[in-house]
């Protein structure tokens, strides 16, 4: 039996109220959508979802990492390899990007299932993460949200079996970005929905049910993609779902359409509420469609204690204005000043990869102290390097020892908050603080670590670890 062994998700802390979009452009709109901070992208959100999924799991047991997204931060250069380093996975794994398609999450899931069934991998981590920038004042603007979902796929300890699947591939074009495009393009909505989404999605569902002698009545919940809330409701009606009991909330009012991560995130939301024995109907759309029968197994209840979708949704900060949103989405050009000058060095990043990407510190086997970053001599007892042993620190919680807020730093979202965080179990990390409410910081508050972009100096995304106030 192959299926999901563990799941996790990530939703950025910031939300944009659609009322703000109404104030800017006119019109209305209810609810809100999740917005990545300026230092987040599909890679950093994937690391977060992966950490949520892998908690309590021996990372060495992961043999492959598949990353699904339409917004890989590098056009050339794999994203999965950086995510694997952020998650501190083994080096001798296979990493792959499944990109371009909105359906890449479930396509990667199939590849993972095939690998574990064939025995070429014991466990495969599949992460779908998307961070699409909609054009200002477009139909997409109120719709698009940011987020990620992760599944550990294997054959042992399966909590949700992917019992049956149907895949349909189509050359239908409805939404796209050319190589040079920052923003998505689309066609008339009636064509997109009437000739694209509805017939393809319906065909996949019907073919799946027919091949497996099933009906929609067999499912506790249906978790499926739709471009909009309205088309989601229409699809539920079209295949005969009971809107009150059988439809997993697609979170358009609280999350938004998160692209390639959307259907996987709705599946995580369904799994969070699922009981052993439940069957979930999963559907995804984009360049065709796919549909799946997911059978929930007894172990599912052991996985409830994680942030997943529900707790991530509850932990939020509302963006105060549209300007900040444009800044976070990098959709506006600001004045350049002589101060906005940063550099990078790829050789330095490479040499320091174990602490900059993997968040390894040193534990001194002479005095027992933990320290970060990696050292040449123990910073406490001056013991030689042979006493220093690398230890992973990214999972450790901490408390804020001291901080400052630099209003003049050339960062995207001033003030630049510098922090010293003492970690549980030893170690102190000096870093920038992100996802912070500058009016509510205090010495002693609980903190945690997060993999983020530091800057884009010299045209390279430079990632490392920051701290943030612990999310609920």
């Amino acid at each position, binding site marked *: 039996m192959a299926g999901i062994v563990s799941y996790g998700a990530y939703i950025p802390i910031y939300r944009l109220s659609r009322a703000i979009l109404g104030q800017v452009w006119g019109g209305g709109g209810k609810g809100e959508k999740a917005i990545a901070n300026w230092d987040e992208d599909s890679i950093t959100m994937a690391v977060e979802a992966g950490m949520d999924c892998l908690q309590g799991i021996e990372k060495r047991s992961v043999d492959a990492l598949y990353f699904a997204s339409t917004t890989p931060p590098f056009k050339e250069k794999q994203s999965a390899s950086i995510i694997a380093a952020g998650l501190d996975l083994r080096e001798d794994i296979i990493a792959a990007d499944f990109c371009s398609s909105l359906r890449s999450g479930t396509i990667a899931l199939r590849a993972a299932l095939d690998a574990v069934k064939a025995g070429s991998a014991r466990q495969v981590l599949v992460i779908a993460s998307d961070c699409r920038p909609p054009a200002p004042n477009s139909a997409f603007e109120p719709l698009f949200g940011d987020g990620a979902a992760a599944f550990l796929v294997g054959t042992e300890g399966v909590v949700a079996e992917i019992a049956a699947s149907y895949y349909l591939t189509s050359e239908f074009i409805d939404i796209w970005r050319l190589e040079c495009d920052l923003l998505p393009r689309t066609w008339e909505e009636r064509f997109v929905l009437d000739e694209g989404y509805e017939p393809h999605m319906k065909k996949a569902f019907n073919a799946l049910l027919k091949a497996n002698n099933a009906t929609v009545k067999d499912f506790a919940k249906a978790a499926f993609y739709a471009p909009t809330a309205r088309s989601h409701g229409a699809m539920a009606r079209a295949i005969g779902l009971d809107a009150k009991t059988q439809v997993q909330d697609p979170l358009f009012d609280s999350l938004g359409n998160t692209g390639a991560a959307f259907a996987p995130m709705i599946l995580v939301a369904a799994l969070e509420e699922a009981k052993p024995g439940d069957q979930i109907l999963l559907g995804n759309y984009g360049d065709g469609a796919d549909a799946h029968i997911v059978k929930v197994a007894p172990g599912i209840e052991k996985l409830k204690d994680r942030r997943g979708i529900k707790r991530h949704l509850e932990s939020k900060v509302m963006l105060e204005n549209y300007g900040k949103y444009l800044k976070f989405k990098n959709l506006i050009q600001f004045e350049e000043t*002589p*101060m906005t000058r940063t550099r990078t060095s790829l050789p330095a990043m490479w040499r320091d990869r174990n602490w900059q990407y993997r968040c390894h510190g040193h534990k001194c086997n002479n005095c027992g102290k933990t320290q970060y970053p990696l*050292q040449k001599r123990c910073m406490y007892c001056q013991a030689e390097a042979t006493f220093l042993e690398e230890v992973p620190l990214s999972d450790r919680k901490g408390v804020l*020892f001291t901080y*400052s*807020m630099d209003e003049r730093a050339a960062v995207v979202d001033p003030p630049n908050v510098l*922090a010293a965080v003492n970690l549980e179990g030893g170690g102190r990390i000096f870093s920038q603080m992100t996802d912070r409410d500058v009016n509510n910081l205090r010495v002693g508050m609980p903190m945690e670590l997060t993999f983020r972009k530091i800057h884009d100096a010299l045209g390279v995304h430079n990632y490392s670890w920051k701290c943030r106030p612990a999310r609920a």
Partner: protein
Amino acid sequence: MAEPIKDKVAIVGMGCTKFGERWDTDITDMIAEAVDEALKDAGVELKDMEAIWLGTQWGSQVVEGGVVTGTLLSSTLQTQYVPVTRVENACGTGAESLRGATFALAAKAYDLVLVVGVEKCKDMGFGGLPSVWIGRWEPVYGAFGSGPGRYAMAATAYFSKYGLSNEEGKRVLAEISVKSHYYGARNPKAHLRREVTVEQVMNAPMIAWPLGLFDCCGVTDGASAAVLCRTEDARRFRDDYITIKAFGMAASPGWGKEREDFDFTYWDATQAAARAAYAEAGIKEPRKELDVVELHDCFTIAELIASESLFLCDEGKFKEQMTDRRAYYHDGEMPVNTSGGLKSFGHPIGASGCREVYEIYKQIQKKVEEPSRQIANVQMGLAHNQGGHPGKFVCGATVVGTP
């Protein structure tokens, strides 16, 4: 067997330019200005200098980065093939330059030498220090960690440790700024020459919380210079020369910020340099024996913590022992920064260490530019000069005095 440096070397001439935003003045103009004053003060000529130390963090390369050598000085002043050593130890450059020159004289390698400190900070196009460094910890570790941001962490930690509310803590710092500006206003060569009130300081725009605009030193252009010889030769140049009593110099192991047992409220390198300097100078009670201290107050919190780490007052007792008793004014029991300090005199990085000694030199000679800040009787003073940031300092403590 090493010998103490005490009283072996004398300063016989000093110069200091007007500090400030000197838009019309190049780094070479400022070198010439400071050197001319120092040479004239000593009654010597440039060609008499046998070796020169040039202290500057960025030199002439402030905009684009690159190589700075002693030729910055030799090509400016047309010295003819004497050695010019370029010295750089961040904001502690000045003390290091003086130290190199002093030891060369003590070693009898030369008889008469020149020290110059200079910085041109205002060619960059923004308020704040130039950031051309491409150091070991670039590209991501400590990225965007500015001077104000790093020092402000020490203020937060100090307030927290001693139970001061933000309001109470900022008020203690504001009093320091008021004092600095009081003396800046009484120093014609100072950068910031306007007095301020506690309310102005506390309500000023925030630079790096909890430090506001008036908690931070100016970003300043300027240069300073000194002519030195061995003490036995000093009377050939002047009667009111001063001597070097001690150099305490300490580089911290540098991982304070990252060590769980460091709380930011004391500075280990500062303590180490002070201890070494006091031992060499024979000082047992610095608050009683030092008549003036020129202290490295790039920020108000820097003056507070350095005062404690130099043992001018007890740890955690700055407010009671310095502020409340107005001890740090020129007529108080422990005058600190009667020049206006880095805060108001200004902080052209490479020039500051030598400039601090300049103030003590003038105080001892009773020749400060504006008599209202003259201390009655100065026999011995401390120039404290440090580079880096809390947890990672290189610190110089230079004691000078009457022979």
